[in-house]
């Protein structure tokens, strides 16, 4: 589950060079820091990637983690995202048991959460949901009562919240 108090989000801008992910992961492994989730993809600028890391602060103080990370030559910028001042998103896809009796209830759940049905078979459905990780947690809990066959979450991505005027358009 994602909502622990001891998790903190680091948004790490890196040079998109071979091995950069191995460097980041290796650093966490070597220094005994725990990664809760990790998402990587190219960033807005050519040649840069953004890595969103949710770190488990039970393993080390955040300050040490960021300072050690910043020593990696390929790391350009690290932003610590306070969950209260950032927007977070994650994608979940799950194949869930939905035989004739359960199917209606599962469909209803997907509708309530504004998720999508992405594949249908006799006994199972594959559904997707994009949203705040907490919302995904709730959805996952509820789905579980019908029987989750397979599930994959992307790990969260996050950006700082915009200032007030712009934020009005953002729905959580």
């Amino acid at each position, binding site marked *: 589950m994602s909502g622990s108090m001891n998790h903190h989000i680091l948004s790490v801008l*890196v*040079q998109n060079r*071979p*091995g950069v992910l*191995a*460097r980041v992961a*290796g*650093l966490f492994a*070597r220094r005994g820091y725990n990664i809760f989730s990790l998402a990587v993809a190219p960033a807005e600028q050519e040649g840069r990637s953004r890595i969103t890391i949710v770190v488990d602060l039970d393993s080390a*103080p955040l*300050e*040490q983690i960021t*300072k*050690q990370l*910043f*020593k*990696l*030559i*390929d*790391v*350009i*910028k690290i932003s610590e995202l306070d969950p209260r001042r950032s927007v977070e998103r994650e994608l979940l896809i799950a194949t869930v048991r939905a035989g004739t009796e359960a199917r209606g209830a599962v469909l209803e759940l997907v509708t309530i959460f504004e998720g999508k049905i992405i594949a249908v078979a006799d006994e199972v459905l594959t559904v997707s949901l994009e949203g705040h990780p907490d919302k995904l947690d709730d959805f996952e809990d509820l789905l579980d009562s019908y029987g989750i066959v397979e599930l994959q979450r992307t790990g969260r991505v996050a950006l700082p919240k915009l200032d007030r005027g712009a934020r009005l358009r953002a729905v959580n």
Partner: protein
Amino acid sequence: MAETRPDRITGAQALIRALEHEHVELMFGYPGGCILPAYDPLLDSEIRHVLVRHEQGAGHAAEGYAHVTGKPGVAMVTSGPAATNLVTPLMDAYMDSIPMVAITGQVPTAAIGSDAFQECDTVGITRSCTKHNELVMSPADIPMAIRQAFHIATTGRPGPTLVDIPKDCLIAEMDWYWPTDQEVLDSLPGYRPNIKGHPRMIKEAAKLILASERPVVYAGGGILKARAAEALRDLVELIDAPVVTTLMARGAFPDDHPNCLGMPGMHGNATAVTSMQKSDLLIALGARFDDRITGKVDAFAPTAKVIHVDIDPAEQGKVRKPDVPIVGDADYVIREIIREIRARQAEGATQADTSAWKSTISGWREQFPLTYEMSEPGAALKPQYCIQQLHAHAPEGTIVASGVGQHQMYASQFWRFNEPYTWVNSGGLGTMGFAIPAAIGAKAARPDRTVWAVDGDGCFQMTAQELVTATLEKLPIKVALLNNSYLGMVRQWQEMFYDERYSEVFLDSSNTPDFVMWAESMGCAGFRVESPEEVAPTIEKANAINDRPVVIEFRTDAAEGVFPMVPAGASNDDLILHPSQQDRAAALQEER
């Protein structure tokens, strides 16, 4: 000079030319399949290449070179087993912040990932023991990769870098170019070491220093890296504070200076250790609060505020939370602190009274000098005596390299270091076998200096083959081999903490090997010394030999222990004094 036609050269030629552009005069290495192309243009270069006998030797020699010059040491080896042989020196250099550039051959790009002959994932293996490493995938990238490697190795907190070059990139041609400084900076947007230190923190530091009644300057290896020995001395003399020099900082402040308390830590002297414990202000300069210094962290210097000057932001607060963190170059920051103190004094500020502290410290120094008992006639030599005699007969400017073990601690304790860059040792990693190859690197860098390697019988057997290198390359180092027939340091732990149950520490090296014969077979002069009267004359003989390396085997007392000692994990308050001083231990806890 219009450069219209591109200068077509091979990647190998570009590599050697890049090294020349980086002012490399000397490198250490060992050829093999994948790096072969690079050894051809080397024949036409001014760069001197020292052919070692094992790649670990190349790495430690590069470190020794870097230790005494401050310039990056360069080691070049082939792929696979050669690259893995370099791992220990890379880690050693990483731990001790030694600038070093390693160049490794790699299998051709098309073969990477296929488990080709002598393929290994060199960048993967060395990722956590280099400051940065890079696998070059095109000959055109070689000059930039080399420039980055030198830039990163020598700036900020120095450290080892590695450039892995596939064979086809060495063979193929490229258009030579040499990146500008700006291009190098632009290629490393995330790398901007902080030099200057925060002005507010510098002010804060000056304020704390002037207010402290029990200051201690805790000088670490960063002083040497920053070439800040002179600034350190100015600061110490300005505030008249006692100084401790860590194992990595021996020589950064003269042992003969009245303010120098010598080495703190696990085998530090009682005054150096206790002064930190009782201090009200630790002025940590280029030091990293290593566990060998702090002992049990929670009990370390409990009453002290801490000013921590370090160029590596990650060192701030890693072990001990500083009251005044200053991220910057030690030389620059110390000078700024001096300027600030002077400015305050000019405005009428005065320094707190440190006289009680000084008299407490001089009381400790009188009662707790480093000490040992002379050997009985006919008994084995005392290792401390050998070190003192080596020092007494050493010409000025002598460089000492050391292995790891008891002999290292005796050397650090009983040699008097009065000049920076005269002590070469493996501090952070504690690499047995470091002494001989590191001494060779130091001698290659400073042929005018006498270079003594202080070695143990265990260490010697790990890297002695490099004495062949020393002989053939005309690098006449001298080796003082303190042969106690044991892995002495481990034996001491078993004696003290495992009820004298000696397990696998007896090397039985009084007959096998015959060190004198071994030395002679490698082209060295070899001597064996068994009694105190022979010590000085043999050292003099060794000092007179300059056409080949010398090995003196001193037969030393296996039962001798290194004291004082803070057992691993114990508080510095619980240091174990030399047996002859244990009756007065209470004096260390008395306040004056």
